[in-house]
């Protein structure tokens, strides 16, 4: 998709793919016949620039035909560079600028609490994205209102645009920060499907507390020449690189 669109974020797409797959095919009531059901679980892709992985997951989950993926970022496509809920089935919130997903997901989880609905809300943020202050405003709100029906997953690949997070603006000690904000925290290998699914099935981690899952991942996971390389945050593979990457991913 990134190759044919000639733009995109392949590194972050690959670091978040296993998380998305675990959510849509292991934990959430979403996709397929759930897509428009009122009591579906909600997912907010706060790192909207990784729409490639998100769209591929939604298509696989039956939200729309897989052929649509070929139109990614093409003129008049439903698949914008960043997700648009009014265009694409399965998208719950318009995202793109960072730091928007957490407040929106907090509002969704609050809506369920206020109206007594049983659906759960999941939100995936990047780690560099946590430098946006709006996340921490939402973190306080979610803890104050005891939103244990809300689960944040941090795609902790440690790389943001152009550099390592810890060299840009330090995030560590990340787990302690969330605990201090009143959240229940669990750290997990973000590429271990079984561990992720098992974790999502035993939510909430603590009653009355929102859940923070720090998923340790690798940018460019599955492609040796992209893995943990900052330049692949936002780079388009050449024909040769694409062929090599697909060979590695399919093996």
């Amino acid at each position, binding site marked *: 998709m990134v190759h044919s669109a000639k733009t995109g974020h392949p590194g972050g797409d690959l670091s978040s793919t296993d998380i998305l797959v675990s959510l849509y095919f292991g934990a959430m009531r979403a996709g397929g016949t759930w897509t428009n059901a009122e009591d579906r679980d909600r997912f907010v892709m706060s790192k909207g620039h990784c729409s490639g992985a998100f769209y591929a997951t939604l298509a696989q989950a039956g939200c729309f035909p897989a052929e649509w993926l070929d139109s990614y970022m093409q003129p008049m496509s439903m698949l914008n560079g960043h997700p648009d809920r009014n265009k694409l089935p399965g998208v719950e919130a318009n995202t793109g600028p960072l730091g928007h997903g957490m407040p*929106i997901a907090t509002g*969704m989880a*609050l809506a369920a609490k206020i*109206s007594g*609905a049983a659906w759960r809300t999941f939100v995936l943020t990047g780690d560099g994205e946590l430098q946006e202050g709006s996340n921490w405003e939402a973190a306080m709100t979610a803890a104050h209102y005891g939103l244990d029906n809300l689960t944040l997953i941090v795609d902790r690949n440690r790389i943001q645009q152009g550099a390592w997070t810890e060299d840009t603006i330090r995030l560590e000690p990340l787990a302690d920060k969330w605990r201090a904000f009143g959240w229940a925290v669990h750290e997990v290998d973000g590429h271990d499907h079984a561990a992720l699914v098992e974790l999502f099935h035993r939510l909430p981690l603590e009653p009355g507390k929102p859940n923070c899952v720090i998923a340790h991942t690798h940018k460019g996971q599955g492609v040796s020449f992209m893995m943990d390389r900052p330049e692949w945050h936002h780079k388009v593979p050449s024909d040769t690189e694409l062929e090599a990457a697909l060979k590695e991913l399919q093996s």
Partner: protein
Amino acid sequence: MAPQSAQRHGIGSSAEGVAVVSASAQLFDCRDAFARTLEEAAAADARIVAVVNDSLGSSKMGGFRKLYPRRLVNVGIAEQNMVGVGCGLANGGLIPFVCGAACFLTGRAMEQVKVDLAYSKSNVKLCGMSGGMAYGPLGPTHHSIEDLAWTRVLPNLTVIVPADPYETEQALGAALELDGPVYLRLSRMGVPNVHGEGQAFRLGRATKLREGRDVTLIANGTLVCRALEAARQLEQEGIAARVLNMATLRPLDEEAITAAAQETGCIVTAEEHSIHGGLGGAVAEVVTATVPVPVKIVGVPDVFAPTGSTAFLFEHLGLTAAAIHDAAIAVMRRKARKC
């Protein structure tokens, strides 16, 4: 469902009462009508929730909290989060009224207003309290004279600036009936009733408060009563001024503006907002594209205001009936010179 119970009062008729911020005409705080109407609406519709940013008092939501404690969300002093939470509540099936000071609600959270509300078409009613110069002595940090320029450029976002308690009540009802985002801008400054009993309010339609063929005065919010007073002064000088209350800034009533340009040949706009980008700008955009006629914009000039009370600033910055009157005379001269 349209809340109906606002008490009706006589139209403010005293020239003094209208020309200055306080005097003999009975003045009302539109926030009272807003709070009362919202409480009534919430009784009929369990989806209505209120969101505040430590602004319970300034939004007059104390009564709402007492009646519906579980439906009042206080996110603290966090406007970006507040607008995002509003979006999430709406996407979760509720109808949030997100209330806070207009200056912070728009300025601080402008990207959320654009992305989470307008672009997303989320059913959030954003209620900007104490717009314009309402926080007079607190200074330019707290004045909200840019909010209408910011909000009216956003597709999908309806922008309403009511002029009196009656229109506030009607606007809230109209916002509720609309499935989409609305920015409702309220003042805290006393205004007289300018609407007659049962006068129709229609979203996107200007209300003609006075007929006239020499000049049209188009105003919204707190300047509507001042435009009416200017028209009364002009009448004494033999000039018939049409007065339009343009409560809906977006979508704009282009038809009424074009008719005014055609039939009266010149226009004065008046608003409690910067002269750039608000009602004046919106009217000028229509006029230049349809029937180009002289337009004069009365509003806050291109400055950060000095310190002083709201009443002082209105006089100092020329947000007065006298200024509208003088602008009408000037614009009629330009009409006569055909420039």
